[in-house]
């Protein structure tokens, strides 16, 4: 709760105060930059998602019939690279984070608005390099494992260079957010009054800042190996191929948490509003974000249990992996307890938040299978891992992202979404997702290896089911996209605070004015004070 916020504001909103290409391309307004990211990542999400539909269609039958094996390999490389580096890493953090951090902490903008625009331009440069890379796309998988990535004739350099540039965008965004959260909080906005979404993005920003340089350097080493013939990873020249995997996962495992922690933050915002209850275990959730961020630096080699690392290393990393499961479990239980004795409203955003709880639990629990050494030997590099990973990334992050879009849409665009259409889309997305990915757990246990352009006939029925699921999922996405675009034009005008939320971003106009607040609010309580005391 805060005082000093004006109920009615007559100034033009940030969307209206200026128009034209230049007003967007040179904008330093965090809200507009958030929209630029939102549009960009959505484009990549649609491209990478369409690629997945083609891959699933190819896998409808065991033989190659729609695309050649080489093309299939290119497709899964692009699907992974685009989804990970161009959509999900910048996803919630850069788009929603930019829009929401200053609004939620009661600031007028981020700490370094020009740097913020610069970060977005870097993202665009990375995307432009990627377009050139598509002329002769790489076939290495998004993991770029050496020696294959050093030997293949396809264009690995441009794709990795694009990701290298994106890395700077991510680092600078992280830096900007850390400084913003430290220095720009409104009076009275103490650390323990911060919305949990901010705690989550703070933890994420630390990971972005500290882990991303490692993948940047690793990809540079790979480029040096390909162009200059320096054998960092080439055993013939004294290098070590497994070293690449260590470097790569030293970033990419924390990156998994760069992807999931912001979604956890979203859930912590949506659940209390639609339950009319304070978040349960605020400190437990806040500190577990930080704990996950820290421990996530020490679990990378669980991707390498069968890669040729020593048994001692495997044992240590298995143990550390189980450690990271503890704060994750704590979060799930606290979210669940938030619902207890609430007044639960099934808004479409809430449906996504509840789906997150359900699907992320599946993703988390199946993580225990692959964390246990003996089981991982069997499951590693099979469809089980593919399913586990998608349950965390789609069931977790993307559900959180969709929930956030439906939740903050009125604030962002000043229009209400069609909630009925939102629920119909949710239904297709939820069913389609499960039909697509749940069979893949069984495929994996039965031994179906991942990244196979063709497969043995015994896997055919489950593969067909998975492909059918991808169509249902696509239908849901199309309905959702229609709703999001249609509502921009014909949506009802949104009130300033349609859900009676206590959080600061809802205390200003929808959409917010250029500098967010008429006067900087003074915060007197946390933003989860729902329900009656005593």
């Amino acid at each position, binding site marked *: 709760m805060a005082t000093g916020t004006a109920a009615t504001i007559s100034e033009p909103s940030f969307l209206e105060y200026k128009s034209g290409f230049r007003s967007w391309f040179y904008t330093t307004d965090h809200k507009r930059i958030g929209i630029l990211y939102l549009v960009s990542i959505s484009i990549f999400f649609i491209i990478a998602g369409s690629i997945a539909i083609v891959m699933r269609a190819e896998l409808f039958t065991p033989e190659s019939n729609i695309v050649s094996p080489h093309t299939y390999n290119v497709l899964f490389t692009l699907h992974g690279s685009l989804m990970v580096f161009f959509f999900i890493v910048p996803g919630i953090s850069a788009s929603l984070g930019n829009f929401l951090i200053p609004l939620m902490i009661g600031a007028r903008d981020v700490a370094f608005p020009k740097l913020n625009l610069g970060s977005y331009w870097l993202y665009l440069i990375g995307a432009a390099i990627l377009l050139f890379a598509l002329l002769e796309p790489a076939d290495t998988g998004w993991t770029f494992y050496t020696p294959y990535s050093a030997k293949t004739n396809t264009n690995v350099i441009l794709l990795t260079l694009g990701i290298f540039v994106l890395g700077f965008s991510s680092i600078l965004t992280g830096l900007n957010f850390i400084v913003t959260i430290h220095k720009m909080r409104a009076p009275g906005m103490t650390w323990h009054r911060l919305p949990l979404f901010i705690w989550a993005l703070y933890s994420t920003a630390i990971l972005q800042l500290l882990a991303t340089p490692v993948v940047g350097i690793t990809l540079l080493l790979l480029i040096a190996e390909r162009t200059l013939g320096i054998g960092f990873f080439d055993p013939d020249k004294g290098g070590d191929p497994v070293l690449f995997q260590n470097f790569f996962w030293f970033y990419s495992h924390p990156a998994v948490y760069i992807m999931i922690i912001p979604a956890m933050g979203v859930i912590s915002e949506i659940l209390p509003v639609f339950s009319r*209850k304070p978040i349960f275990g605020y400190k437990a959730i806040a500190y577990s974000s930080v704990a996950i961020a820290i421990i996530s630096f020490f679990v990378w080699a669980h991707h390498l249990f069968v890669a040729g690392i020593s048994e001692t290393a495997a044992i240590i990393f298995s*143990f550390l992996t189980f450690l990271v499961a503890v704060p994750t479990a704590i979060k799930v*239980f606290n979210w669940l307890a938030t619902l207890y004795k609430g007044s639960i409203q099934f808004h479409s955003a809430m449906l996504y938040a509840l789906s997150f709880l359900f699907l992320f*639990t599946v993703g988390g629990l199946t993580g225990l299978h692959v964390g246990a050494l003996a089981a991982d*030997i069997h499951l590693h590099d099979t469809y089980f891992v593919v399913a586990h990973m998608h349950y965390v990334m789609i069931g977790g992050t993307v559900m959180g992202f969709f929930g956030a879009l439906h939740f903050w849409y009125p604030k962002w665009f000043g229009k209400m979404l069609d909630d009925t259409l939102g629920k119909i889309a949710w239904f297709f997305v939820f069913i389609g997702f499960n039909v697509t990915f749940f069979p893949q757990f069984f495929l994996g246990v039965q031994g179906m290896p991942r*990244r196979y*352009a063709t497969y043995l006939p015994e896997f055919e029925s489950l593969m067909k089911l998975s492909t059918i699921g991808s169509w249902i999922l696509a239908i849901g996405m199309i309905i959702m996209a229609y709703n999001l675009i249609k509502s921009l034009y014909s949506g009802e005008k949104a009130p300033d605070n349609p859900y009676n939320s206590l959080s600061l971003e809802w205390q200003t106009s929808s959409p917010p004015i250029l500098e967010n607040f008429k006067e900087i609010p003074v915060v007197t309580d946390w933003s989860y004070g729902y329900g*009656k005391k005593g």
Partner: protein
Amino acid sequence: MNWVPEAASSFAGKVDGVLWFVTVLSIVFFILITVLLIYFSFKYKRKTENDYTPYITGNQTLEIIWTVIPSILLFVIFAYGLIVYKEMRTPPGDAVEVNVTAKQWIWIFKYQNGKSTINELFVQHNRPVKMVMRADDVLHSFFVPAFRVKQDLVPGMYTQLWFNPTKIGTYDLFCAEYCGTGHSQMLAKVYVMSPEAFSRWEKGDEEETTTFASTKSPEELGKDMYSKNGCAACHSIDGSAGVGPTFKALYGKNESLQDGTTIEVDENYLRESILIPQAKVVQGFAPSMPSFKGILTDEEIDALIAYIKSLK
């Protein structure tokens, strides 16, 4: 429906034990969370805009319970996985060694009696075997679901795994680490044979010569060689493009080579391409084929050529 593949090695059942243990625990927690989720959602569904909701911010006892209990269970899972893992990684002293070389996109097995086979691994029932493995070009991974074993093969280092096959039969071997265009065709079979059948196989190739020589025409034999030796990973027989030229209508065709010359594909060119693949590479293809010198016998090469000639 089979939840897990056939368990055909000494520790396969134990790996399944870990899998089931984690699965049952997961299901218990999943049901707990889902039931609460659904129960709360409907029990506390909003009735009016002004529903009474209590101001509950947390509960320290609950926080401790759901930190400590999962921690203990997680440690048990870790320990259980570790115990079975130790067994999977410790080959018995009397394990018979087989040298495995993986290259794009074939498996080569060399046995202690000097024999070598491609894409077919012969092992004796109830006799532990240890694979000493290396990769020639890029990463590969040796994966036999029925034995619950998997290990990457890495250029420049030896990796190993072992298993004791406990059921006679034929099992699929997959390459599980992505290795390029032919990755999904890099398949092999593991034959677990009775001691008698195995020693017959070990002593000579009566079995092979009898099955090959007696009943089959060279073309049929060549067709077997084509599928058994991994040719299919790169060379199609239906005219579709692959890593290497298709075999369809290959014989008698004029191919342009990388050095700009052309050559008519005849028996000698085919034979040379099998034994010294880099000698005359067809334009538009990478010189990536491995040599089959010392792997295929002259009779087998004859049969393969006969098969290629039959693909008009």
